[in-house]
């Protein structure tokens, strides 16, 4: 796969069809991957990588590095492709300036899961078939891949690429998932339990803004939380209220636009399950207004800028979600 991608990237660069390539770059450790812009075959040969650790969603990176006077090749996993489609819908990227190659993703490894298992001193990780071998200073360990696959990949919503110019590998399908199970579990708790749960999680927030800055839906020119003129700007959560406020509004602003790519949870240094907030909105939208997948198609009308006359009333919440 990686070799085919490199080959195509070099071909397209050589033909002049594109002048830049956006992909993943390898680093110090097997598991740390950086998104990068490549402009030459040498760079691609040296640094380009596509493996089970390339979890970074390139759509946000592409958004930040877009250039409209030249064409850029960007490799997108299914998740990234949904995010990109949403960005195109919102006129945040110029589709014409992109040459999109869809690449499959067979589930990305979450190194935090390995570390959470007490493994440290990792010198290398190799993924072979269904096994993941971890070589460390303190001994070796092998995991079945599913054990260390990231939560978002285990609950993959789709292996399709809503937007692409060409595909490498076969096009996948929309998947049946159990991604709302965690949400349902929380919904089944008492309000007191939920309050305790979220307080426990959100109180760890250090307001580093990684969730926001990594999110492909958060592309505001200036975020209201950074805008001193908005009246709600915060730089640090000086009170537990502000922790709640930031996360509620962050999720609300991407409600109906969030494609559930899971970057927010991936980047959180404090391991706050932020995707459970976004998924709550997705689950509610599906339940109240019919199934909707953001980024499934260019030009979709997001549920929060839409309505039907028969929409459920807000008191559905007081009635416990039952109309």
């Amino acid at each position, binding site marked *: 796969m990686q070799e085919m991608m490199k080959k195509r990237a070099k071909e397209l660069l050589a033909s002049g069809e594109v002048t830049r390539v956006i992909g993943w770059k390898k*680093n*110090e*450790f097997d598991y*740390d*991957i*950086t*998104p*990068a*812009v490549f402009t030459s075959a040498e760079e691609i040969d040296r640094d380009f990588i596509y493996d089970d650790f390339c979890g*970074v969603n390139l759509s*946000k*990176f592409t958004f930040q*590095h877009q250039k409209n006077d030249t064409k850029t090749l960007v490799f997108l996993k299914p998740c990234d492709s949904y995010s990109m489609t949403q960005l195109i819908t919102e006129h945040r990227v110029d589709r014409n300036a992109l040459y999109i190659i869809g690449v499959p993703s067979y589930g990305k490894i979450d190194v*935090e899961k390995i*570390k*959470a298992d*007490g493994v*440290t*001193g*990792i*010198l290398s990780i190799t993924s072979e078939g269904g096994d993941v071998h971890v070589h*460390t*200073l*303190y001994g070796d360990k092998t995991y079945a891949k599913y054990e260390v696959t990231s939560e978002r990949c285990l609950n993959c919503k789709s292996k399709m690429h809503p937007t692409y110019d060409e595909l490498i590998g076969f096009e996948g399908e929309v998947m049946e998932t159990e991604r709302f199970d965690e949400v349902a579990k929380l919904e089944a708790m008492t309000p007191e339990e939920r309050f305790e749960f979220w307080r*426990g*999680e959100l109180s*760890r927030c*250090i*307001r*580093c*803004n*990684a969730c*926001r*800055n*990594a999110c492909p839906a958060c592309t505001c020119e200036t975020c209201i939380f*950074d805008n001193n003129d908005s009246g709600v700007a915060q*730089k*640090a*959560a*000086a009170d537990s209220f502000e922790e709640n406020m930031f996360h509620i509004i962050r999720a609300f602003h991407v409600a109906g636009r969030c494609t559930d790519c899971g*970057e927010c949870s*991936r*980047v959180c*240094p*404090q*391991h*706050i*399950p932020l995707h459970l907030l976004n998924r709550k909105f997705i689950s509610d939208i599906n339940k109240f207004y019919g199934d909707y997948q953001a980024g499934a198609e260019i030009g979709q009308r997001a549920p929060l800028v839409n309505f039907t006359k028969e929409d459920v009333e807000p008191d559905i919440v007081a009635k416990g979600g039952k109309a």
Partner: protein
Amino acid sequence: MLKILRENLDQLFALIAEKETLYIPTDATSGIAQFKKWEAGMKMSEKLKTSRSAKDFFFPQTEDLVSFKTNGRKIDIIDPRTETEDFVIFGVRACDAKSFTILDRVFLVDPVDTYYKNRREHGTVVTLACSKPAETCFCTTFGIDPTEPAGDVSAWLTEDALYIKAVTEKGTAFVESVKAIAEESDETAVEAQKAATKQILDKLPIKNLKTEAFGGGKTETYFKSEEWAKLSEACLGCGTCTFVCPTCQCYDIRDFDTGHGIDRFRCWDSCMYSDFTKMAHGNPRLSQKERFRQRFMHKLVYFPENNEGIFGCVGCGRCVEKCPISMNIVKVMRTLAKEEEGK
């Protein structure tokens, strides 16, 4: 050196907590360690380090500086400062312990930051030697010996016992206070652990990172480097690296309107944020590249220039682990040093 059996750790904690507030690293729900106020039954984390550094104890993320209260058209000024209670932080690693001395150089020099000083004076730091360093560790690069941590009291945890040794005066008092449940011991077990750890340190992947290329006087060398653009390319501009960093010390002062008046507080700032050093006229750092450069130039050049060659990094590896796009000081140092070498 005192020895306290592992099974007596709870007893030790209880003993400390009787007199002072005690903080220990403990595991949070989703698999990260954090310092928490000790309560009966709380277990110490087995993890190498907490995901946030220990700087919070002396330099918390937010801190009220002064309040203004309005009463009709009258404004009262309220100073919220009170004498801090004594507290103990237990289980600080060598890197974080070193970071306090770096922060001291910022906050305790004239003009002294009384808020910081107040906390620093009342805190007792009990460090804990490392025995299982992670692949992201590179404290040795900055001359730190993780087997011989500083602080007020140094401690070593072996299979069966905790060994403690006072380092400072404050530490002596602390050791004295826990003598009841300890026994005198020689250093054999500790030495054995140190030797074993040192062997591992030799195998760490980043052990060969060198600081020679950096230090005061190198501003001209690196400021205009071509490499910054590429290094900062993927930077999201989030504050993760700065907020998990034990030595980052920038803060912003803000006002909060409570409805009854104003709370003036300070909170950590991050040089990665687009509004960092934004002033009335605008922002002298125009792009992420410049902000990114600031962070590393500060740690590697400006700080040592003003502080007798001491670097603003302790090699704890948190930024290496936490950066969402895997960019960190290690890569910056390697890239710049290589470029310099190549010239």
